[in-house]
Structures are given as structure tokens and as C-alpha cells.
């Protein structure tokens, strides 16, 4: 059980994010839930590449042994760019939310113009 604790955390964060995306009505709260989901997926990738008793994939502070074990570098490189892109998409979603508020005078998704006719 102790070996899969980070995977269970990933599943819990993903479930929290999806439930909030489905059941929350406030647009800013939906963006926040999307961020939590994003962080959970980042954590899953980093946990996949972790090796126990290893060191970061950087040779500068490494000990002068003949055998060194390091964690996997590719998931870290992928997640590194994903964090910056996640911030940019968050800013875009917030901009659209603000424009929606200025046009409808509400952030509730069920009170937007054109929604109540289909409900």
C-alpha cells in the first residue's frame, strides 16, 4: 500500500477536479478545478519517473562514484513546459470568464443569456 500512495493521490485529485467541473456553477471555480486537475496529472507524470535512492538528473553535484542512479529526465522535461502552458491557458480562460461577466452580469453558468430556454 505504501508503494502506490502517490498514484492514489493522483486519482483523488483527478476525481476532485472532475466532480467540481461537473457540479460547480461559478466560472472562476470551474477554472480553479481545471487547475487542480492539471496539477494532479503533473504529479502523476513526475511520480512515474521516480527512482528510489536516486538523484536528480544533473551531473554537477554528483558524487564521484563509478555507478550513479538517476531519476528519469523525460517526464520532468515534459511537465516543465506543461506548467507554463497551463498558466497561459488559465489566463485565457479567466479572460473569457471576465468578458462573460461583463456581458451577462453574472458568473453562474445556468443564468447566462440563451441557457434558460433549453433548460
Amino acid at each position: 500500500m505504501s508503494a502506490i500512495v502517490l498514484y492514489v493521490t493522483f486519482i483523488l485529485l483527478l476525481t476532485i477536479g472532475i466532480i467540481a467541473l461537473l457540479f460547480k456553477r461559478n466560472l472562476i471555480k470551474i477554472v480553479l478545478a481545471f487547475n487542480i486537475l492539471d496539477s494532479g496529472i503533473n504529479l502523476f507524470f513526475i511520480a512515474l519517473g521516480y527512482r528510489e535512492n536516486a538523484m536528480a538528473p544533473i551531473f554537477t553535484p554528483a558524487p564521484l562514484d563509478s555507478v550513479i542512479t538517476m531519476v528519469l529526465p523525460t517526464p520532468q522535461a515534459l511537465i516543465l513546459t506543461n506548467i507554463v502552458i497551463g498558466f497561459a491557458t488559465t489566463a485565457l480562460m479567466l479572460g473569457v470568464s471576465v468578458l462573460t461577466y461583463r456581458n451577462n452580469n453574472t458568473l453562474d453558468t445556468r443564468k447566462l443569456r440563451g441557457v434558460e430556454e433549453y433548460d
Partner: protein
Amino acid sequence: MRLLSVVAIVILFGFLFVGILHLHPVGEALGNSEVLQGRPELGIDINGVSTMDDYFLRNGQIETKSNNIVASVVFDYRGFDTLGEATVLFIVVSSISMLFFTFLKSKSIVSAGVPPAGQFPKIESRVITFGSFIMYIMILSFGVYLVVHGHISPGGGFQGGSVMASATALLLISFLITRHMQRTRKIFSFFESLGLTIFIGLGFAGITISFLYNFLAHTSTGFGRIIAFGPNQGYLISAGILPLLSLAVGIEVFFGLSLIVVTLFHVSGVKDTNSLR
């Protein structure tokens, strides 16, 4: 309807939980984990390599002359991917400016934080202003250090750029750049475009072999200095075009993220008049 979505979430949870039981446990990633096993002096070591990551760990330092393997994966092995990410950032910044086009051209600026042109802001505290300026210089120095030393220690363009951009928020708190908002946005957008242009230009510089080819790493002088294989202290001028690409990405990320924050802050001070309503 609500019951149906609860059932769907439970099914998703079950699938994920069954899925992680089939993964390898945390801490035991696949592959042959002994990095300096064969100690090839100046060659390519593919003996016993079972995964892509082990190839990067064994040969990344020889092929790209960079001590930080993450930086060599980001800027060399997957450089085209990084170009795509930088383009996504550029497009997002452009689309935010396009979303608030009518707000940014508006002259009616209310006093909610942004003072009218030629006037001092309402909150004028010398402690906040001077302290923010000192902290701004220190955070900016740390960010420049992270960008420049990206190939020998933890850091690089993305990290240093984001650290520097968080200093811009400090300037907005202390009202240091709110008086010259339009000029600030013009300067920021110019430098953001400049960063992406440098990146693409460096990619085309090695076009005789391939796009984004690390042409400086094989010259054995200057940026292609031969470093000792294995653990060493590293040199600032080494690793081919990696520091230059890191600098270009650092410029682009810093000014792009700062432009996002400055644009949203500017819009928050504009009174809503001639919008889409």
C-alpha cells in the same frame, strides 16, 4: 441526471484504481538505472540501454556537453516540441490582447488602482515603493542567474522566466509601472516577439544538417568546449547552442507572462463602456 453522473464518476474511479494496480510501484521506474556503468570515454554507449530515458542519461552529456540532462532533453532532443510550446505561449498572449481590444483602446480609466495620466496614485507609501523596488532587483537577479546557468545547475529558460515574471506582479502592487501602461505593453510585446524570433533563427542556423541542430557543440572551442565526462563542475560557456536557446526562451517567457499580468491589470482599471454589450 445527477444520479447518472455520480454513477459515471464511480465507474471512472474504479477504472483508474484498477489501472494503477498494474503500474510499476512508485520508486521503481523501468530501465537499467546504473548511469556510468560502462564509462565510455568519447563514444556512444548503447550497451544495456532498454529505455529512451537511459539513453539520455548515459549519452546526454557526451552528445550535448550539458551537465543538466533535463535542459538537454528540453532544448536539444525535444527542441522542436519546445518551439511548439513557445508558439502556444505567443498565441495565447496575442489572443488575450485581442479579447480585450476595446478595453485597451478605451480612454476612460477609473481610479480603481490605475490613476489617470499625470497624477500620482492614491496609495503613496515610500516603504512599499522602495521595498518593492529592492525586492524586484533581487528577484530579477535570481531569475537571470537561473536562465544563464540553465545547463549546469537546476534552471533554464522556463523556470527563470517564470521567476522573473513573478517580480512584475510586485511592481503592479507598488504602482511603479501603472502610470505608463501603454508604453510598458508595447515594450513587453516587442521583446516577447524578439525572443521567439531568436529561437527560430537559431533553429535555422543549423539548417544544413537539420532544423534545430546543435551545430556549436561539435567545434571543440568556445561553446563547444569539451568537458570531462561524468561528475564535474561545468563551465559557463559550453553546451553548444543550449545556453542561447535557454536565453531566448527566458526572454520570451518573462515578457510573455508579464504581458498577460499587465494586460489583465490594465483591463481591470478600465470602466466598462463600449464593450461587446
